[in-house]
């Protein structure tokens, strides 16, 4: 895709995901978010001399699970390495990570942009420890004379997922990220709370003239934590690189940082002064041997993934769009499936879930998992509509009442006397009254003005406060007027 001035954008991403374990990757400290500074720490995650790390089994389980969901090869032999650098966000002067033998090898996922499907390759995914948090005394790191460090986050397990440079446009990048986060959420390897920094993105971008095969010089912008930051950062960076190239200059290979407030990327460090990490095998941890039986055991725990769910809902009669909306977030998709057990018409159910239910949840800023209307109760409402107990129109007010009172539909219908009038005798009496009161309309209808019947139906519905069974009213009225 041509992005600007006949340049093509090439993008690859590194995504850091915090795994949802109870404890850190190499020690028993809690991974709970927040907490008073330096209270979720111990000699291991503080890097005290003599402290020995021991790998958390659950981290390996989650890494395998995520790898399988992302179609990755799972290594039979894997090990940890030390990545050496001086920066006080880790107290050991190295990060325990994986270098040449990561747990997950080649994989990928399919994205769809404007109806076109595309495979985005994943190069690898590896386990590593998260770093602590720095608070600088000044505005930025370089204007600060000192910094304060909280190591509560140091040692929280991360999976770093590295993509191939397969993306050619910002919509492709966003589609990849949305799909990736969706899969991670469905597999429950991470809580995926972007606002808490559970998922963070590093964006590698370069430009090349359209038709050119060799890659241009790239920049890496680190530590973005929302989709909108990724989009804005890329828009800025693509325009900046295009300006540099247009002026006949060269893009410098460097690490940049995104300034959210000003909406610009800034040089963090250039490659010339980049770190040589001097990786070497971590002597304090033994290697991992992952037999195929272990992999198969994890494979059995994989849930139905979003793509498969969407296909299943489409088979049940939902449009591609509706199935996409329902399966976008796991919580809504789970709600839908729970209701589907009690009510079989998927299409009608989808209309209520995406319509009234979503509207009520949104206007009350309520998460679907906390909905005062349970999936069973929503299903029950739809069942009594189908039975003819209430009309679809009355049901709209019943669902409001269900939401605000947490009562079930049957109770509300009974208490408020909302049951539909399907009794022919009762309806015929009302119809006679309406016809007697509106002789002109009756005459018009008989004179061939079909529209007149709509007015008469309206009068009958009015007289019954909307509770008359509309199908029956139409049928009886036509018989009367015939």
């Amino acid at each position: 895709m041509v992005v600007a001035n006949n340049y093509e954008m090439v993008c690859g991403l590194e995504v850091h995901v915090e795994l949802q374990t109870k404890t850190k990757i190499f020690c028993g400290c809690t991974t709970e978010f927040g907490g008073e500074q330096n209270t979720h720490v111990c000699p291991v995650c503080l890097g005290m001399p003599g402290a020995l790390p021991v790998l958390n089994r659950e981290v390996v389980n989650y890494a395998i699970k995520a790898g399988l969901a992302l179609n990755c090869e799972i290594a039979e032999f894997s090990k940890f390495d030390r990545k050496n650098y001086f920066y006080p966000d880790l107290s050991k002067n190295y990060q325990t990570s994986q270098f040449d033998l990561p747990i997950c090898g080649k994989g990928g996922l399919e994205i769809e942009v404007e109806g076109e499907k595309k495979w985005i390759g994943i190069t690898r995914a590896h386990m590593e420890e998260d770093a602590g948090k720095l608070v600088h005394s000044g505005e930025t790191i370089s204007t600060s004379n000192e910094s304060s460090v909280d190591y509560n986050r140091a040692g929280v397990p991360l999976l770093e997922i590295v993509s191939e440079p397969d993306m050619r446009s910002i919509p492709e990048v966003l589609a990849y990220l949305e799909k990736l986060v969706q899969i991670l959420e469905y597999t429950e390897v991470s809580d995926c709370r972007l606002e808490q920094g559970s998922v963070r993105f590093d964006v590698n971008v370069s430009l090349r003239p359209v038709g050119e095969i060799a890659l241009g010089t790239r920049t890496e912008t680190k530590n973005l934590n929302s989709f909108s930051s990724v989009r804005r950062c890329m828009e800025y960076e693509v325009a900046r690189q295009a300006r540099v190239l247009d002026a006949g200059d060269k893009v410098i290979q460097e690490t940049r940082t995104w300034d959210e407030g000003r909406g610009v990327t800034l040089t963090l460090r250039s490659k010339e002064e980049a770190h040589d990490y001097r990786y070497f095998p971590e002597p304090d941890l033994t290697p991992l041997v992952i037999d195929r039986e272990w992999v198969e055991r994890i494979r059995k725990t994989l849930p139905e993934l979003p793509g498969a769910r969407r296909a299943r809902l489409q088979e049940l009669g939902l449009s591609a769009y509706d199935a996409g909306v329902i399966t976008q977030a796991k919580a809504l998709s789970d709600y839908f499936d729970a209701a589907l057990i009690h009510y079989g018409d998927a299409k009608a159910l989808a209309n209520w879930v995406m319509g009234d239910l979503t509207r009520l949840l949104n206007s009350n800023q309520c998460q679907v998992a906390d909905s005062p209307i349970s999936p069973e109760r929503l299903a029950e409402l739809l069942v009594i509509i189908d039975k003819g107990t209430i009309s679809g129109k009355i049901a709209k007010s019943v669902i409001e009442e269900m939401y605000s009172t947490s009562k079930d539909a049957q109770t509300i219908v009974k208490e408020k006397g909302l049951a539909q009038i399907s009794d022919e005798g009762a309806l015929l009496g009302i119809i006679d009254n309406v016809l007697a009161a509106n002789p002109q309309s009756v005459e018009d209808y008989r004179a061939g003005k079909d529209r007149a019947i709509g007015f008469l139906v309206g009068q009958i519905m009015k007289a019954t406060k909307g509770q008359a069974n509309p199908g029956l009213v139409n049928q009886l009225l036509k018989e009367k007027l015939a």
Partner: protein
Amino acid sequence: MKISREDVEYVAALARLELTEQETQEYTEQLNSILDYAAMLERLDTSDVVPTAHAVPLHNVLREDQVRPSINHDKALRNAPDGEEGFFRVPKIV
């Protein structure tokens, strides 16, 4: 393989070591003699040997995902050169 002066200066810079002229000279010679000694290993035929990832023949030493008590920040900061309100405090980073 020969270690040059530049190699020593580069490694020293990465390790944040400030070397005098004499030290740079001395370490260049010492590192070369250490590597020459270790080069003896190159005489062995290792074509059938898989790379060693760990000196101890163990694998899969794992722990269960169970929370254990952490230490409080007074204890955490006891050996720290500087700290405040439960934070470690470090001098200018860059």
